[in-house]
């Protein structure tokens, strides 16, 4: 049997969920035996591959790049997991929804001890969405793995279950949905 293909993706989050994934510590070596980690921010594959079996998505959908990436990732993944509270509820990333996006930007780039102005992007920096969205607002999500971040032990069991074709226990909670 060929190994399951696993990917991890990072949208609008703090990377804490990914760090918790790395907190598998030496179990990372075991995981690499069980699955082929075909795409992750800690490796050099630039384009999200086709035919991924399981994808963990950290973070909320906060800008146009995230929106584009989320859709592409959904199309190319068998099982899509909202990985951590930012992906599930918007969490801290979505706190800016209390304000107008212009006010948030101008607070950061105009009001303080700044020379210059709000970055316009030069066509390179993606435009922020008016409101930060949950992953499930944008694409269909198969499983929810809650926590800020989810603890490493929970991640390990969850991923091992998915690789083994089992339904992971934690999904009963459908946190934040």
């Amino acid at each position, binding site marked *: 049997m060929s190994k399951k293909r696993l990917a991890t*993706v*990072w*949208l*609008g*989050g*703090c*990377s*804490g*969920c*990914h*760090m*918790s994934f*790395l*907190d598998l*510590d*030496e179990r*990372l*070596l075991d995981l*690499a035996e069980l699955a082929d*980690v075909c795409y992750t*921010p*800690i*490796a*050099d*594959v*630039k*384009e999200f591959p086709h035919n991924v079996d399981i994808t963990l998505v950290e*973070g909320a959908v*906060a*800008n146009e*790049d995230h929106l584009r990436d989320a859709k592409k990732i959904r199309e190319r993944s068998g099982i899509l997991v909202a990985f951590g509270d930012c992906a599930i509820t918007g*969490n*801290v*990333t979505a706190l*800016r929804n*209390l*304000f107008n996006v212009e*006010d*948030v*930007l101008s*607070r*950061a*780039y105009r009001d*303080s*001890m*700044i*020379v*210059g*102005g*709000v*970055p*316009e*992007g*030069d066509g*390179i*920096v*993606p435009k922020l969405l008016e409101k930060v969205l949950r992953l499930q607002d944008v694409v269909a999500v198969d499983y929810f793995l809650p926590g*800020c*971040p989810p603890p*490493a032990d929970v991640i390990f069991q969850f991923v091992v279950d998915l690789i083994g074709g089992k339904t992971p226990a934690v999904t009963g909670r459908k946190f934040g949905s």
Partner: protein
Amino acid sequence: MSRRIVIEPVTRLEGHAKITVQLDDAGQVRSARFHVTEFRGFEKICEGRPFHEMPGLMSRICGICPVSHVLASSKAGDMLLGVEIPPAATKQRRLVNYAQVLQSHALSFFHLSSPDLLLGMDSPPEKRNIFGLMEQDREFLRSGIRLRQFGQQIIELVGGKRIHPGWSGPGGVHERFTTRQRDEIVKWIPESIESIGIALDRLKSVLDSFREEVAHMGNFPSLFLATVNEEGGLEYYDGVIRITDGSGNTIAEALDPHRFYTYLGEASESYSFMKFPFYQPFGYPQGHYRVGPLARLNVAKFAGTYHADREMREFKQRGEGAVCQSFHFHLARLIEMLHCTERIEELMEDPELFEEAIQAKASLNRREGVGSCEAPRGTLFHRYWVDKDGLMTKADLLIATAQNNQAMNLSVEQTARRFLDAEPDQGMLNRLEAAIRCYDPCLSCSTHALGRMPLVVDVTGPAGEPVRQIRRET
């Protein structure tokens, strides 16, 4: 016909970013830029919330160095209360800060950069990562995983949780340190010292094969800024700011970190969400400076621990007055890991760490507070304003990585000039990324956001029109 090369996403970095290289008609590099594409706006979203919530909220700026934000935030809170916290609380915060520098540097060196250093800049991209390293150098990688684990376990033992620990806040910390915790920690120390020593030997032994990279991937004079203690030694939690230049001359000394805004300013450029801090007396952009491991070893006169001092003396020999090659951030990082482990060992013997008093109780006494510390990537400053009820009215955050922004831009430009040929190949693309990776940028922090870094090499014409785009696809 001039071209623009865009690298997207920049990978094995902690954040979302792109690199672009502009070529002129003759195919020569006109400029190269590093763009940060993420933004979360913590300066705004904190408004109206109680300052006691800030360590927990600001921690979410970054999952790699949450402890730095917890500490800067707790210290700003201490100042709002107007208290001096008990010695045991200070020592606990110091301990957890050392643990964090250790785990974060282990991540940067072993998980992210050692594939370049040990497998080579030109090795196949699909293997040039920790999984490739697992096949080739399993035990070396395991030692790095365990070093990170050591740091993370201290954070968990003391802070209750590895990522976003909530144990420290305005006035002190919430739990006493116990001998059981000490016993857990001391077990790890001999292995850690040994593993870091082996990594140092490995890195030094391959440096010769990176001569060109050392010389051209970010080698320029600049100012360096870091916290030092009263004697001018390495310091990560409480001290004064010292600034030196590319020849090792002192530019400013004994600056008060609580008044950073009187001598540091920030600029913004339209092409990046990351700001460009500068030393005000020199203006922008001349006043740009570097922070982090390389800066700390340049600015501090000594380490103050046995093994780290030996390495630091040797390190300082690599420059004249200052080590200006950003490639040596890697070496500096390993030396700091050694130092942090030694300091952790010392703290385990310190009776004050175990004392009962851990909280200074007070209500709000000031309307403005500043907290600063050395984060893994450099000096971090939080400045808060609150109303009479202690609700936040404003926050300014000066983030470690952002202070290397100008240097990172200079580094990609220098690297592009040296390594970019008519037909950019994978090795060149990787070197552009590796130039950035030296700084271990935490872009989550620097834009108060974090994500994956894109790497696209975009080729544009004289008027900026796109000619060709090269994406790293494997």
